[in-house]
């Protein structure tokens, strides 16, 4: 663990906290540099470039917790942060479950996890602008109906993350990220529609071709033109990978340790029970090299791992940090997550639905009348009850083919039903973020429209 010595600085801050009266402490230091170039209608529109850093501290005095953060890493800034955290432990309540992970749970995965690619930091500005320009240009050229654009952007981030605690853990890692996206606007008559496409990777070399990004974005925008509202009815619903990913997010919220111990998830108390169709297997794996949810240890210093969450429809594990595990009488799954301040929450590693055998085309071909959902909007998911109702847009399926665009409708049901009536899982799993899913087919949902 080498670098700028941030792990040592974090360990120093932990020692300062102990010297000031804390019985336990953990400290996070983060540093990042961001760059962003936006191009619109082939002209450079914005350039943004900067860096920042900050430190966060959580302390325990017995079973009382306090936390503080600062962007001022000077000696005085750190002293103030330590004092602030200790002051707050006076006002919190004694919590028998509060505390750092057991020493036996601490550790870090060895080896290179491919989180940092050196090619990101040194990219010339002109090249980055040109990537955005190429993606947008490809979108503008792809179809005469692409009449306008919200532009294209190329973004990079390079960061360093250090963590130390008073049980002897100290670690540090670097991460890099770059992405290219474009948002073309299509127009035909009175109809105006936009869509987007993007490519994301840990390193520049991992990005897809800008021309492909532009072309796909344009195709997606154009096929939405002339979208109509359909009649209210029950039909099979097909989620393309981009929208299927949001169901993984819903599953995450439902297996989140905090929601489980508070009994505010429809999956609370269901360990070992069948909660989904046997076609559904959900895995969380924070150890896959190069992916976006990968890290050597979680935000409490516990090694990340592979956790089977749902196996052939049976709920096998919740996702837990140390606190939620203790509340439930279980062991942490290495899923602690936090910003600079506050207690650790629960976060996912790479959370995904295992691929099935059929291609999306095969899945669609088997449906006489149905709805292929390419966009979901709104927040109409209630994890407590499982009630699901969201705004949707996409394509109507007729006789096994994508027939016409649909918009201004909702799809509704319950997550319980959606999981148990999951009919098919596609073979098209791709990781475009820390959550991923292939095409999914749900037997029946209520479409509300005309």
């Amino acid at each position, binding site marked *: 663990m080498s670098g700028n010595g941030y792990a040592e600085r974090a360990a120093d801050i932990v020692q300062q906290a102990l010297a000031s009266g804390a019985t336990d402490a953990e400290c996070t230091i983060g540093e990042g540099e961001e760059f962003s170039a936006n191009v619109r209608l082939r002209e450079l529109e914005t*350039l943004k470039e900067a860096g920042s850093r900050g430190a966060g501290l959580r302390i325990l005095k017995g079973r009382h917790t306090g936390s503080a953060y600062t962007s001022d890493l000077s000696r005085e800034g750190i002293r103030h942060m330590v004092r602030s955290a200790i002051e707050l432990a006076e006002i919190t309540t004694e919590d028998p479950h509060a505390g750092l992970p057991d020493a036996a749970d601490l550790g870090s995965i060895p080896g290179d996890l491919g989180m940092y690619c050196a090619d990101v930091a040194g990219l010339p500005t002109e090249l980055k602008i040109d990537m955005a320009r190429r993606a947008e240009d490809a979108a503008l050229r792809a179809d005469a109906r692409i009449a306008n654009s919200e532009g294209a952007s190329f973004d990079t981030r390079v960061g360093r993350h250090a963590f130390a605690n008073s049980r002897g853990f100290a670690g540090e890692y670097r991460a890099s990220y770059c992405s290219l996206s474009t948002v073309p606007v299509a127009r035909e008559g009175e109809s105006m529609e936009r869509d987007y496409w993007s490519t994301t990777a840990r390193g520049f070399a991992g990005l897809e071709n800008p021309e492909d990004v532009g072309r796909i974005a344009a195709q997606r925008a154009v096929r939405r033109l002339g979208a109509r509202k359909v009649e209210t009815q029950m039909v099979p619903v097909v989620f393309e990978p981009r929208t299927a990913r949001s169901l993984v997010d819903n599953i995450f919220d439902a297996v989140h340790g905090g929601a489980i111990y508070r009994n505010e998830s429809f999956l609370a108390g269901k360990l070992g029970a069948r909660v989904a169709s046997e076609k559904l297997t959900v895995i969380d794996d924070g150890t896959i090299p190069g992916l976006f949810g990968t890290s050597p240890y979680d935000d409490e210093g516990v090694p990340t791992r592979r956790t089977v969450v749902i196996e052939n429809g049976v709920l096998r594990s919740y996702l837990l940090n140390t606190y939620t595990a203790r509340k439930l009488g279980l062991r942490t799954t290495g899923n602690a997550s936090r910003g600079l301040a506050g207690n650790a929450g629960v976060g996912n590693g790479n959370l995904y639905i295992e691929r099935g055998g059929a291609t999306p085309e095969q899945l669609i071909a088997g449906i006489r009348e149905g709805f292929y959902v390419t966009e979901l909007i709104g927040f109409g998911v209630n994890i407590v009850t499982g009630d699901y109702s969201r*705004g949707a*847009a996409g394509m109507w399926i007729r006789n096994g083919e994508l027939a016409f665009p649909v918009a201004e409708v909702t799809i509704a049901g319950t997550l319980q039903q959606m999981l148990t009536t999951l009919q098919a899982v596609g073979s098209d799993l791709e990781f475009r973020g820390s959550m991923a899913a292939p095409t999914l087919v749900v037997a029946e949902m209520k479409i509300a429209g005309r």
Partner: protein
Amino acid sequence: MRDLENYLAEALSHGGAYADLYFEYLSTSSIGIDESIVKSASQGVSLGVGVRVIAGERTGYAYSDDLSPEKIRKAARVAACIAAGPATVEKVSLNEGGRRNLYPVLTAPTETAFTERVELVKRADRAARAYDPRIFQVQASYADNLRQVLVATSDGVLSWDRQPMTRLNVAALARVNGGTPQRGHAGGGGRVDLGFFLNEKTPEHFAAQAAREAIVMLDAVEAPAGEMTVVLGPGWPGILLHEAVGHGLEADFNRKGVSAFSGRIGQQVASPLCTVIDDGTIANRRGSLNVDDEGHPTRRNVLIENGILRGYLQDKLSSRLTGAAETGSGRRESYAHIPMPRMTNTFMLAGESDPEEIIRSVPRGLYCPDFGGGQVDITSGNFVFSAAESYLIEDGRVTRPVRNATLIGNGPEALKYVSMVGNDLKLDEGIGVCGKEGQSVPVGVGIPTIKIDRMTVGGTA
């Protein structure tokens, strides 16, 4: 002051036409209670400066969390490079404008003792549990911050502001005999001092609302699906305006011609009963600001007047490029973010109908007094907002509660179906957070009871 002028000159050294500096010092604190245990308490500070340079349609931006002169000058040089050429602005001289104070908070809650603030969440927890024996889980959180900003622009504007903010949230879960739990939410606050929670909107007020909503939902039946008449209750349901019209009227989208409202100024976009205002000057409100994040005083802007589209919300860049007057709507999340046109407090003026008469006029429909969040696709104009508490209207009477459902409509069309507007305008209690292009800012909404003759309700029945 001389230093600021020099930084601006540095920012314009490559030929930029306009530059500004945004200095921010933010202190925050938060307290959380869960299972009647105060489990978390946190405080912190962050500070920094953002430097922006505009050259034609181009923007260069850089920021620093180190306020030493060398680092600020470095950020200015980075931002300056958006332009290429000799400096064109000769000299910058700053003048402090007149001041007003819409939130004369003497002691910001952030500066008070924690012992007073921790009582707020404890009281909320006790009150929600005491509301009904079926309440079995309560979480409450209290957060406040104090943002001190200084904006200096090459137009000569020098503004500073001290912006306090508070918010108290309560969530309660209810259950009968181990059955399916239901959740209720409430919260509020604003640019106020602690007295607001002690005298005006107490923790007990929010706790009772959250608990009541959870209890009501225990009897909820399936929500209807399809087009029907929808009656929105007063207050927070004003989120309809925020999603249906507000975002679509932000000048950046319209300058680029990508909003469903582009080119529609002067056209009928709502029923003549609708007048929609965005007003950043209401005292102590969550969305209010003395000056926007570009240093301009906020204003009361008429967006829609008697159904006719009147104007867009401008930021500096859009008003420079289109020649439109400033509206005081340039906002940013922090010093690390580029300003954009944003809403402040968005509401519809009261009409003449008695709210009870509005309900009585509906043979079959949905009554929605509380909502969760919403979202809009500004290009197609399609928007959603999700009911958190709603009831069937049967034969002119509010009857059974229904499960959460999303409502969907199209921005330039939806408000044309407004057929009655109540005389009971209410602003929300101060919980709104608006997200746009990754930046979150606090906002307010408000609406009287209104009747919309046709809207799609996304239930299951």
